[in-house]
């Protein structure tokens, strides 16, 4: 996949060779809504990048929390033991509404990056994150849909000095 800053739609061309040695070529566009993580050693912080595809999420209409309410589900680990859980709502309304293209990225290494770990717990050396549509609410009859992350989520590990 290309860097998040370049695009949020990846064009893939597939060529299939048939038994009679003829080929069929198809081009498909993979639309991404994704997150990526970056650890900043000098400040002991982690920022998340967020790719939002306005066409996919909002049918190119203005941001609307009732259609898609982006949340990061964040788990902090120390030596593979979970030490903290937090839900972070992504404040992306202005970002979405000001997109000139149908997609864009809040890059983790830019000012728009979402700070998800501020070094507040000593010894944390791993983080995993899911992107969900809405918060996890104990009293709700449903859980939010998972939009990105599989297994234990998007995971990043680092070595502490």
């Amino acid at each position: 996949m290309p860097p998040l800053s370049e695009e949020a739609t990846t064009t893939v061309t597939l060529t299939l060779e048939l038994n009679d040695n003829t080929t069929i070529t198809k081009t498909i566009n993979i639309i991404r809504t994704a997150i990526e993580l970056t650890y900043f050693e000098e400040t002991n912080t982690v920022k998340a990048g967020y790719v939002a595809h306005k066409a996919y999420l909002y049918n190119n209409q203005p941001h609307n929390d009732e259609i898609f309410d982006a949340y990061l589900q964040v788990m902090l680990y120390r030596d593979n033991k979970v030490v903290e859980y937090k839900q972070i709502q992504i404040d992306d309304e202005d970002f979405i509404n000001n997109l000139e293209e149908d997609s864009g990225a809040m890059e983790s290494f830019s000012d728009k990056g979402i700070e998800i770990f501020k070094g507040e717990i000593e010894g944390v050396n791993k983080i995993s994150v899911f992107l969900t549509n809405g918060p996890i609410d104990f009293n709700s009859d449903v859980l939010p849909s998972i939009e990105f992350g599989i297994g234990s989520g998007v995971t990043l590990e680092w070595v502490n000095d």
Partner: protein
Amino acid sequence: MKRMLLVICSILLFFPIYVSAATITETSYKNGRITIKGTGEGELQLVLFGLDNNPLYLTTVTAEDGEFSITLPEIVGLEPGTYTIKVADYDGKNVSIKTVEVKLNKRSINFR
């Protein structure tokens, strides 16, 4: 006709219609870790809630051949009590709820 109706009712009673929604069948706590077993299909999501009903852990698990089993990583600070686990489809629907009892680890002391 009545006999046929009786047969159909018996079949429905003893052989319930198979529902593919995720269901937790068993939970346990051992050596500081929680294990959850259940049934379902495909990719499922699982949330462990704390005693204050805030989420403590989220993961996804794949049900293979209609069954899943997962042992969560150790969670620091788990106090004794009854914790709630919810399992749902990847899109958050068809939620199944079960609890797990977390107890203090027993320690044996040898007197000599």
